[in-house]
């Protein structure tokens, strides 16, 4: 499965959409894309991180997601970042970490 990372601006919402394996190698790319999305424009547009297409996620990938959530809570205020967990692997990792109800999960 090939790794892709798309960033779209749709009706004022920035959608960050990684697909493929989110691991040691790709996690830094996602982290950078998220930081860029946070700073883009006026720095206050809502961000949706869509993980539906992620086929594998390890602790580095999880860390990239969690760091974005922490930054959002500290700087952007609640509600700025939404995460679409999709089904399967991402949900499994979030369940193992017991974070399903601590993260700002949204529907696609």
């Amino acid at each position, binding site marked *: 499965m*090939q*790794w*892709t*990372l*798309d960033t779209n601006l749709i009706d004022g919402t920035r959608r960050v959409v990684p697909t493929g394996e989110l*691991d*040691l*190698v*790709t996690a830094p*790319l996602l982290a950078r894309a998220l930081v860029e999305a946070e700073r883009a424009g006026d720095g206050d547009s809502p961000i949706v991180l869509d993980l539906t297409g992620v*086929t*594998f996620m*390890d*602790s*580095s990938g*999880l*860390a990239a997601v*969690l*760091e974005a*959530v*922490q930054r959002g809570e500290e700087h952007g205020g609640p509600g700025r970042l939404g995460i679409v967990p999709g089904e399967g692997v991402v949900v499994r990792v979030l*369940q*193992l*970490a*017991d*974070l399903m109800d*601590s993260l700002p999960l949204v529907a696609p």
Partner: protein
Amino acid sequence: MTPSDALIADGETERAEAVRAELARHGHSVRVVADRETLLDHVADDGIRLIVLAPTFGTEPVATILEALRTLPRSSPAVVVVAGTREELDEQLVREVVELGVADVWELPDGVTATDVRLRLVLAEFYARLQAEHVRVGGEFTILRRALDLTGTGFVLTDPALEDNPIVYVNESFCRMTGYSPDEILGRNCRFLQRDVTDPESIAIMRDAIREHRPVAVTLSNVRRDGTVFQNEVHIAPVRDGHGRVVRFVGVQVDVTQHRDGRGDRLAMAEGSRRLAEAALRRTRFLSDAGPRLDATLDRRAALDALALLAVPALGTACVVLSVDGDVVRRDSASGAGSAIQEALDALPETRPATPGDPVLVAATGGGPLELDGTRALQALGATNGNGSATLEGLRGFAIPLPARGRTVGVLVILGPAPLGGDDAALAQDLAARAGLAVDNARLYEEQRQVAEQLQRETLPERPLRLPRASVATRYRAGGAGMRVGGDFFDAFPIEDGATLVVIGDVTGKGAPAAALATIARSTLRTAGTYEVSPAAILRTLNLTLLRHRAETSRGRFVSVAACRLDETPTGLRATLCLAGHPAPVLQRADGTVEVVGRGGTLLGFAPSPRLWEVAVDLGPKDRLILFTDGLSEAIEGDEEDRPVTVADLVEDTRDTSLDDLADRLLEASAAGRRADDVAICVLEVTPNRDRALRSV
């Protein structure tokens, strides 16, 4: 930010990272682009000299991208390379991209990580080949190519790996000389220039030399496109890679027709061309040989040896590398052609005090390359009467600083009976530049390795784990090869009320920062155990420490841990488990039944009040508890949907296996997955109660 001079367009991040690292090592400033628009945006940037494309990029075939590149205005023509795995590079695609003007096609090994040594070697080799052939990549090579193009010297490269050793590169002069266009030349064997007029004997000499991979020079009667005959003096030499394999033949052609007609000015021009061509050829061969050998070296000793091997006898009869430490000059390596010279070099003092006007000191401190007469050469080596200087008497020297990252890491002295000529001096300086970097890289690598190893030691207990009433087997492996250091840890220690706490955990990330965090986690848990007795309370302490670190460094630090408190009971052990974002341990009873124990709690380092649950389970004699990190569960659970294997499944039917064998089997299973993650495994088995056993007899 410095402007980029190289672009990598590849969606395969692991591969892109490997290529990026390799190009960066060669001094490129690299931009990795992940989509077509970004690529097209930056292709036109000033100073882009090299573009590496994946065979497929996004959904588009590379040919479409290449077409798009052609239509863009570019300030300087960049060299374009396509890099992919054998599977991606089918014959059709290779032909297509070569026709579209791609400079080279790099076939990379499949399924490797960015730090894989094999991939590094392959890339180093390809890069050296690119430098040797595609003359536009580095400043030095631009000049070389221009010289070749201007002097009317034909220059071709052929690829013996392809059928019939076809021409894969041709310069303008060759086209002018023969009247054919590049399209008509590329892909054909050189013999298309031969006709009936060509001397069969010369052809045979040439063919034998190529077959035997020897350099050769012959003069042939060849025929131009328009049918006219010309005298073609052909020089052919094999180009070898770092493994000694012949990867290309260089052919240099000089039209000597006029020469035979006896016209003086033409003769001089042809002579000049030939000399230039010969020098160019030698340089190409030399550097394509030197690059991979030096680049693949991560050991200082080996780097110096490779340098000596490359310099002698190509540049001189002896080569000595010296370094300056305060006012002491040390001899790091010395290599001579022939045993007499080698013995004389070996007899020289290893260290000597610097002398007034010491040529080594002068060269090392910004004096640049120095020509040394016989006396000064002996002075540089520290040769005096009585230590074998007689053999070295009369040799002249050339001292060149070995530069690396703005410093001088040593001085290379090349000794020979005659002063080093212009071409050889330039070659020697090229070599010094490469060797300096190789020596410095080896030093950096060694330093990093020592730091990483030190950290790694801190993440694991110094002694094997000892548990009350239980035998224990532990396994640990840091993922990947080479420098990788893991973020997994385990430990067992007594806590405040005398019980024992076993912990196993995994911190996010890899390398030295992960190992440092693992060390913090382990020591925090130990400290917490001196005043807390419940596993949940101990894990909460670690959680607070991590959150404090986050506040200080504004970098997330997340740790998953399984903590297991062990209390002795009349029948065995009571295990009180607490899991924080960690896979649940597996319990194998003495009768062979297998179950997963514990209740999942929150990963540490994220929430101020993680949910943590304690679950107690009584273990009888021979019961086994298997604790592990996700390096094991992820490897076996894997991505293949038709293989829903869990660690519990793996443990089924292993009741007859010894504790050690079970640990080995689990470690093997973790290596079988295609991901090389860190893994830590800790298997414990309650020892039979001897008192009870005696009583029941």
